[in-house]
């Protein structure tokens, strides 16, 4: 479905309905335009079909659908409301750049617009699923000590990594020295809390932007959403809200990994059968 007015103009930049041979409207690879900075310069026109390796087919297939992993069904505006995701801080704590995401304010407490949250959350979960499908390293970051244990458990349950402790200065920018000579940095950083314990922006937000690592972040009304690639406006202080986000991320990542295993097994079987022309038999949406 074409992204509606709920999405900010910036996020719609690369997502244009194209007059293409494909009948479905897809968010295809973004053409290098003035707005999109740092996009991969792979030109969509001359796509090398030369090496039709299985790997390429596996990687290209999910990009042809808008919601390949069907993340929409994992949540609804009602479930977000029940988890108290719409509750923000008091109006005095409000960050200037969060004003577009705020629905209004009741008794001096800011209420976050859940329609926008739902749209942003769908984009964020979709992106997370794609990164997990391509076997990227995902790092969960959050500095609120109340939920540190929960976040670490979430990361362990989906086979990814967590960092809810004191963040050493050059961890991302000086990684070869701190972590080892040929270390692989995370391919995605998910912030459950964008602020640290003294209510300042977490250092990892800026460092990830420096190292060109995409970020997904739950931004409350007192946070700065500008440096985060896929901000999700929502409450980051209530237990039900954080539990909901952890559950959503865990489900998406597990789903994406499961899908990858299925697709690999399928293509391996096909390869062994020796029939290259057979199209993939399974439907795009994975079963629950």
């Amino acid at each position, binding site marked *: 479905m074409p992204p509606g007015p709920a999405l900010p103009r910036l996020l719609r930049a690369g997502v244009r309905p194209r007059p293409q041979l494909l009948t479905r409207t897809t968010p295809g690879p973004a053409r290098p335009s003035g707005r999109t900075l740092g996009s991969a310069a792979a030109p969509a026109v001359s796509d090398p079909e030369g090496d039709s390796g299985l790997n390429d087919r596996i990687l290209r297939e999910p990009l042809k659908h808008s919601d390949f992993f069907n993340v929409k069904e994992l949540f609804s505006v009602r479930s977000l409301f029940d988890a108290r995701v719409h509750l923000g801080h008091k109006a005095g704590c409000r960050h200037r750049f969060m004003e577009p995401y705020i629905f209004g304010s009741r008794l001096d407490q800011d209420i976050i617009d859940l329609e926008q949250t739902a749209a942003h959350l769908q984009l964020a979960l979709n992106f997370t699923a794609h990164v997990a499908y391509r076997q990227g390293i995902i790092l969960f970051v959050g500095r609120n000590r109340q939920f540190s244990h929960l976040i670490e458990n979430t990361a362990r349950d989906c086979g990814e990594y967590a960092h809810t402790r004191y963040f050493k200065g050059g961890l991302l920018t000086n990684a070869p020295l701190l972590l080892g000579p040929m270390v692989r940095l995370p391919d995605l950083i998910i912030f459950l809390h964008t602020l640290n314990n003294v209510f300042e922006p977490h250092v990892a937000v800026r460092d990830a932007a420096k*190292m060109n690592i995409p970020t997904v972040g739950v931004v409350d009304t007192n946070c700065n959403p500008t440096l985060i690639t896929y901000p999700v406006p929502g409450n980051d202080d209530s237990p039900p809200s954080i539990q909901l986000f952890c559950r959503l991320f865990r489900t998406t990542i597990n789903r994406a990994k499961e899908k990858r295993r299925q697709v690999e097994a399928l293509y391996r079987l096909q390869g062994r059968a020796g029939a290259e022309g057979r199209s993939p038999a399974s439907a795009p949406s994975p079963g629950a």
Partner: protein
Amino acid sequence: MAAPCVFCGKAVSYRLFLGARVSLAREQGLWKAAAAEVQTGTASQILRLRHTTVVSTKKNIAALRRETYTLDFIKKQIEEFNIGKRHLANMMGEDPETFTQEDIDRAIAYLFPSGLFEKRARPIMKHPEQIFPKQRAIQWGEDGRPFHFLFYTGKPSYYSLMHEAYGKILDVEKHQNQLRAQGLFSEKTKTKDLIGSRWLIKEELEEILVEKLSDQDYAHFIRLLERLLTLQRGGAEEEFVQRFRRSITIQSKKQLIEPVRYDEQGMAFSRSEGRRKSAEAEAVVYAHGSGRVSVNGTHYLRYFPVTQDREQLMFPFHFLDRLGKHDVACTVSGGGRAAQAGAIRLAVARALCTFVTEEEVEWMRQGSLGQEFRQG
């Protein structure tokens, strides 16, 4: 990076330097495509850009200085050491099977005599584990994904320990809440397990975890364990905490008590020795008597003119309220006046243990009996 460049390809190549895997064909394809897009750049500029990408792989100088020993290398060294040990045993005419490290050291000192003052500069032949410093094995697999889920914190073992301890606290609290809800909760305090043991010190913890810790980290960990102890815990948590306690070596409670002996007249006596500074004394204490003390055959008033020395002799009896009830005959040599008095006092105290109950022995242990340490 070198010169700032609006060129988007640069960002991709920078990530390459950090070890992200991209197939070579695709990398070249990107570059070709990218180069084709630059319309304004001159030929020399494009060439220079190409050149910098190929050349500048950032080498981590500091890490290279820290030599990394691979597992194969260490294994080879161990094999060579074992073979060399057998050759050495054959050379020295000893049995290769029972050739210990001390034998090796002696053999090397014999075959390669060295007059160097610095012992560490002399030739050594030790097991490679003791020579090559212990290093952490590479912590990620072939695809670059680290094995430990807390790898990116920098101190995975320490933080996973904290995570585990906190998890146990939460479990215990949840269990207690359940019991309270059912009304089965009962207050119980168990503190006797802690006596006779101490917490691990920071160096021991660092050794276990193979990681550097700061003082705050260590204090935080101990606080967490103490919090776990204040809750009522079950067997599993108890085991977990005991892993981090070390028993203090207690001084042996057994004071050697001389058995009662009987001399020709049938009198019960007890003999023992004592030392103080360079004086050695041997005392014979009779079970029944009237408080007569003779030192080296002379009366103690003659031998020790100074009151202070006589008070030293009297102290054990005074402590046990047996002042006029025992006779003492002792011999002493060496040391000075006060040292001899102290030596006799210790000998008398030990001898008195025979005639005295267990509790009183404990009391005496506090002061009178543990005195042989100060050599002056």
